[in-house]
C-alpha cells in the first residue's frame, strides 16, 4: 500500500461526492422497490405505508443528486485540478458562465445533469399527482429505476474487473500514470487545467445542454405512464399525461433548436443543421413524441389509436436511451463530428439500453390484445383519420432517419464497412422534403375537420379562402425570393417549390383558423399556434437553405487560382469558398468590397480582426469582428464567426486561417544593380526602375537631402503597384527608407549609388511571407433565417399553451 501523503490536495469534496453518488444509487433502488410495493399493494393502508417510505427514499435520492451537483461545481469553480474532471474540462482563465459549460462537457457531468432533471420532475410529480391514484406509484417506480440506472453511470465502482460507471470525482493521480503524479508535491506542477474545447465556449453551450437534458428527462414521464398503464391494464392515464407530453415536446424541441442555433453561430458547419448523427439522434425521439401526442389526443376523443400511443410514447423514451448509447459509446466516431469519445463503458451503455427496450416490448406484446380499440372504421372526412396518418408519417420519417444514423451500429454487428453516401445531407433531404410536404399540408387542413366526420360543404366553405390566400402569397414568395438551389436537378427543385407552398399553406390556414374560427381566442388556440410555428419552421428551413449564398467565392486576382469551369462542378474542387485578404487592401467580394483593417487581442488572448464591409450598390458601410481563440495551450485555434444581422438575412464571416507573426523574419535583402529603365525579376513578376527623384518632398529641413526611386512592380497576374524606396541624408548620417508592396510580399530598399556617372544604383529586394498580415475568410449570406427562429419560438409557445390549457382543465 502506497502511503505517500500528497501536499495541497483537497480530498474532502471528492469523498463527499463519492458518498453522495453511492447514496443516490442506493436511495433510488430503495425508492424503486418501495414504489413497486405500493403500486402492487392489495390494501390501501399498505399502499399508503409503502408510498410514504418510497417518497422519503426518493427525496433523499434527489437531495443527494442536488448536492452532487453542488460539489462537482465547487471543484470546477475552485479549480481543484487534483480532480481529473476539473483538470480535463476547465482552466483558470474561464469566465463563470463557461465553467457551467465545463460541467456538462464531459459524460459524467451530463449524466448528472440528466439525473438532476429527473429528480426535479419526480419531486413535482409527487406533489401534483393527487388525481392519478395508484398510477403515481407506477410512474415513480419507473422514474426511480431510470434514476438508479443513471446513478450507476457516475458511481465509478469496480466490481471485480468490471468498471461500473465513471465517477466525476476521480483524482487525476488515480486515473493517470504520469510519473510526476507520484511526487508528493505534484500539485505544484499542475498549474492549470487543459480547458474547455474552444468551440464549446459559446453562450449557447451554457444554455443548450440543460434545456436538451430537461427535454430528454421529460420523455421519461410519458414512458413511465405507458409502462404503468400496461402493467395495470389501465388507460385512463392518457388524460393525465398530456400536459407532461406537450411540455416535453416544447422543451425537447427548443433544446434541439438551440443546438442548431449554436451550430449556426459557432461551428464551421456552414449552417444550422448538417444531419449529423448526434443531431438526428435527438430529433427522432421528438418526432416520435409528437406523433404520440397526436394519437393520444385521438384516443381521448374517439378511444382509437390506443396501441399507437403506447408504441410512440414508449419508443420516444427508448430512442432517447438509444441516442445516449449512440453518442456516448464512441460508435459514431467516424461519422459524427461531435459525439463523445469512448469512456470504456460500452457494455454498460448497451445494458442501459436493453434493460428498457426488451422488457418494454415484451410487455407491449403480452398486453397487445388487451388494448381494445373501436371496431368502427375512421371516416376519411374525420380529423382523427388524418391525425393518425400524419402521426405515422412523422414516426416513419423518424425511423428512416434513425436507420440511416445507425449504419455504424450495423457495421459493428455485421462486420461490414458501409460508409455514408457522398452527399449525406442530400440523402436525408431528398426523403425528408416529402415528409415536410405531407406534414405541411396535413397541419394546414387538419383542424378544419371535425372528429368522427365532417360534412363536405363545411370543408369547402372554410378551406376555400386559406387555399386561395396561400396560392397568392406563395406566388409572391416565388417571384421575389425564389429558390437559388438547383444543384440536384429539376425534380428536387420542384419538390422545394411544392414544400414551400405546403409550408405557406400551413401558416396561412392555421392563422386563418385561429382568426376566423376561434375568433382569435387564446383558450383553445394551442394547436393553431403550434402548427403555425411548425409551418414557419418549415418555411424558414426551405427558404434559407435553398438561398444560402457564398460571398467569398474565390475569383479575385490576388490568389492565382485557376478556377476552370470543369472543376467547379467537381465536388472535390467545389469548396473554393475561402478568400484571402491582405491587411489594408480592399478585396472584391460580390456585393461588397471588404477590407481587413487590423487585428487586436483581448484579455483572453482572443484575436479580433477588424473587417470593413462596403456595399457596392448602396453607401452602406459596416464593420465585422470575427475572432480566433488559441486552442488551450496547444497549437491551433478555433474561429468564432461574426455576423451582421438584418431582418431578412444574416451575413456571416469567419476566419478560416491566418498568418501568425510570432516567428522571426530571417529573410535577407537581395541586392540588384540597375539603371533607370532597367527591370529585374522577383518570384512573382518584375520591378522596373522608372525614375530617380531628388528631393521630391518639400519641408524636409535645410541641409537634408532625399533620393527616391520610383518603381513600378508588375505581378504575373498583371497587377501593377507603385513603390518609392529612398535614402534620406541628414547631415552626414544616411538613413534608408523602405517601401513595401504588401500584396506581393515585397520589401524594397534603395541601398546605395554604385556608379554616379553610369547612373547605376543598388536596389535591395526582400521577399518575405512574414511581411503581410493576411487572413483567409469564408463569408456566407443566409437569407430569412429569422423565419426559422421565429417558428421555433412560436411552436414552443404553442406546445406550452397546450400544456397549460391541459393543466387547467385537469384541475377543474
Amino acid at each position, binding site marked *: 500500500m502506497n502511503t505517500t501523503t500528497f501536499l495541497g490536495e483537497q480530498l474532502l469534496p471528492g469523498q463527499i461526492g463519492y458518498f453522495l453518488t453511492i447514496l443516490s444509487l442506493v436511495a433510488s433502488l430503495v425508492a424503486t422497490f418501495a414504489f413497486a410495493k405500493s403500486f402492487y399493494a392489495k390494501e390501501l393502508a399498505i399502499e399508503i405505508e409503502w408510498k410514504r417510505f418510497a417518497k422519503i427514499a426518493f427525496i433523499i435520492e434527489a437531495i443527494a443528486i442536488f448536492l452532487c451537483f453542488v460539489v462537482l461545481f465547487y471543484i470546477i469553480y475552485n479549480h481543484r485540478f487534483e480532480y481529473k474532471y476539473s483538470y*480535463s474540462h476547465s482552466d483558470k482563465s474561464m469566465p463563470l458562465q463557461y465553467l457551467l459549460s465545463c460541467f456538462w*462537457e*464531459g*459524460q459524467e457531468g451530463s449524466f448528472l445533469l440528466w439525473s438532476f432533471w429527473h429528480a426535479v420532475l419526480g419531486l413535482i410529480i409527487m406533489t401534483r399527482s393527487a388525481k392519478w391514484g395508484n398510477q403515481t406509484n407506477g410512474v415513480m417506480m419507473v422514474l426511480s429505476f431510470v434514476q438508479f440506472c443513471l446513478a450507476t453511470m457516475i458511481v465509478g465502482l469496480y466490481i471485480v474487473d468490471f468498471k461500473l460507471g465513471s465517477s466525476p470525482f476521480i483524482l487525476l493521480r488515480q486515473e*493517470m*500514470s504520469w510519473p*510526476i503524479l507520484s511526487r508528493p508535491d505534484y500539485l505544484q*506542477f499542475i498549474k492549470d487545467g*487543459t480547458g474547455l*474545447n474552444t468551440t464549446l465556449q459559446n453562450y449557447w453551450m451554457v444554455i443548450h445542454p440543460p434545456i436538451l437534458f430537461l427535454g430528454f428527462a421529460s420523455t421519461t414521464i410519458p414512458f413511465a405512464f405507458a409502462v404503468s398503464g400496461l402493467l395495470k391494464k389501465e388507460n385512463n392515464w392518457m388524460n393525465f399525461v398530456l400536459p407532461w407530453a406537450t411540455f416535453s415536446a416544447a422543451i425537447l424541441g427548443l433544446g434541439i433548436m438551440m443546438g442548431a442555433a449554436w451550430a449556426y453561430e459557432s461551428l464551421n458547419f456552414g449552417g444550422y443543421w448538417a444531419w449529423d448523427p448526434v443531431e438526428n439522434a435527438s430529433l427522432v425521439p421528438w418526432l416520435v413524441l409528437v406523433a404520440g401526442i397526436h394519437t393520444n389526443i385521438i384516443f381521448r376523443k374517439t378511444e382509437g389509436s390506443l396501441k399507437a400511443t403506447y408504441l410512440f410514447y414508449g419508443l420516444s423514451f427508448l430512442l432517447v436511451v438509444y441516442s445516449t448509447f449512440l453518442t456516448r459509446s464512441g460508435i459514431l*466516431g467516424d*461519422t459524427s*463530428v461531435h459525439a463523445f*469519445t*469512448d*469512456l*470504456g463503458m460500452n457494455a454498460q451503455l448497451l445494458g442501459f439500453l436493453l434493460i428498457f427496450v426488451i422488457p418494454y416490448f415484451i410487455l407491449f406484446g403480452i398486453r397487445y390484445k388487451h388494448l381494445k380499440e373501436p371496431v368502427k*372504421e*375512421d371516416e*376519411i372526412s374525420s380529423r382523427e383519420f388524418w391525425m*393518425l*396518418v400524419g402521426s*405515422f408519417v412523422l414516426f*416513419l*420519417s423518424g*425511423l*428512416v432517419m434513425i*436507420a*440511416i444514423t445507425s449504419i455504424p451500429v450495423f457495421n459493428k454487428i455485421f462486420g461490414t*464497412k*458501409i*460508409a*455514408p*453516401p*457522398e452527399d449525406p445531407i442530400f*440523402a436525408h433531404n431528398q*426523403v425528408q422534403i416529402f415528409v415536410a410536404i405531407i406534414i405541411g399540408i396535413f397541419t394546414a387542413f387538419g383542424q378544419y375537420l371535425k372528429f368522427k366526420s365532417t360534412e363536405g360543404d363545411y370543408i369547402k366553405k372554410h378551406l376555400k379562402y386559406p387555399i386561395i390566400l396561400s396560392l397568392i402569397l406563395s406566388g409572391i414568395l416565388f417571384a421575389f425570393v425564389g429558390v437559388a438551389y438547383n444543384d440536384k436537378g429539376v425534380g428536387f427543385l420542384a419538390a422545394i417549390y411544392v414544400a414551400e407552398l405546403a409550408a405557406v399553406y400551413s401558416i396561412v390556414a392555421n392563422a386563418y383558423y385561429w382568426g376566423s374560427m376561434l375568433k382569435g381566442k387564446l383558450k383553445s388556440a394551442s394547436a393553431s399556434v403550434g402548427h403555425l410555428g411548425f409551418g414557419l419552421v418549415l418555411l424558414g428551413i426551405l427558404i434559407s437553405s435553398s438561398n444560402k449564398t457564398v460571398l467569398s467565392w*474565390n475569383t479575385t486576382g490576388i*490568389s*492565382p*487560382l485557376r478556377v476552370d469551369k470543369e472543376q467547379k462542378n467537381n465536388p*472535390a*474542387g*467545389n*469548396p*473554393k*469558398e*475561402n478568400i484571402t485578404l491582405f491587411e489594408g487592401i480592399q478585396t472584391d467580394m460580390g456585393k461588397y468590397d471588404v477590407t481587413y483593417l487590423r487585428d487586436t487581442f483581448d484579455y483572453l488572448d482572443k484575436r479580433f480582426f477588424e473587417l470593413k464591409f462596403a456595399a457596392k450598390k448602396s453607401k452602406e458601410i459596416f464593420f465585422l469582428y470575427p475572432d480566433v481563440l488559441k*486552442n488551450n*495551450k*496547444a497549437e*491551433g485555434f*478555433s*474561429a468564432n464567426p461574426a455576423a451582421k444581422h438584418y431582418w431578412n438575412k444574416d451575413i456571416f464571416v469567419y476566419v*478560416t486561417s491566418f498568418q501568425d507573426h510570432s516567428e522571426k523574419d530571417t529573410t535577407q535583402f537581395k541586392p540588384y544593380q540597375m539603371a533607370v529603365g532597367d527591370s529585374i525579376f522577383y518570384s512573382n513578376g518584375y520591378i522596373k526602375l522608372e525614375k530617380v527623384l531628388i528631393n521630391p518632398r518639400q519641408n524636409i529641413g535645410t541641409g537634408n537631402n532625399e533620393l527616391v526611386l520610383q518603381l513600378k512592380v508588375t505581378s504575373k497576374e498583371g497587377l501593377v503597384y507603385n513603390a518609392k524606396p529612398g535614402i534620406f541624408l541628414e547631415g552626414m548620417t544616411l538613413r534608408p527608407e523602405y517601401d513595401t508592396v504588401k500584396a506581393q*510580399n515585397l520589401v524594397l530598399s534603395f541601398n546605395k549609388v554604385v556608379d554616379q556617372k553610369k547612373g547605376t544604383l543598388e536596389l535591395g529586394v526582400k521577399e518575405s*511571407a512574414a511581411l*503581410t498580415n*493576411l487572413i*483567409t475568410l469564408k463569408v456566407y449570406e443566409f437569407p430569412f433565417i429569422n423565419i426559422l427562429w421565429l417558428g421555433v419560438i412560436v411552436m414552443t409557445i404553442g406546445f406550452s399553451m397546450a400544456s397549460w390549457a391541459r393543466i387547467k382543465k385537469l384541475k377543474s
Partner: protein
Amino acid sequence: MKKTHIILLVLIAVSIVALISYTGDLSSYETIASAKQREGKFVNLIVKMDKTEPVNYDPVKDPNLLKFHVQDSLGGKISVVYHNTMPTDMEKSERLVLKGRVQGDHFECSTIVMKCPSKYKDNPNVMKEQPVTISN
C-alpha cells in the same frame, strides 16, 4: 381491412423504398490500397497523417489548396489534395476520415473528419502522455 391500415401499409412500403434507394447511395470504408484499385469511386479512408512528408498550405497563393500525405494502418500511403482551408488542429488529430476519390496519383478529398484529442479529452489513450503545461 380498414382504410387506415391500407394507408399505413403504403407508408411503410414507401419508407422501405426510401431506405433501399438510400442504400444505393452508400459508399464504403476502404484501405488506401483498395481505394487505388477503385480509382474514381467515392470512398472513405481512415488514415493518419504521414508526418515524414511535408504539408503544403500557403494561403497567400491559394487558400483553397492543401496538400499532405497520409498512411493507413496497413502501411499504404498516398498524397492528398484538399480544395479548402487547412482544418484547425489537423496535425494533432490522431485519426482522419477522408472522403473523396482517388484520381491518378493522389486522393482528391472532399471532406475531412477529424478525431481530435483536444476535442473531447476524455479519451484515456491521449491522456497517458504528459501535457505541455506540466514542467518540472
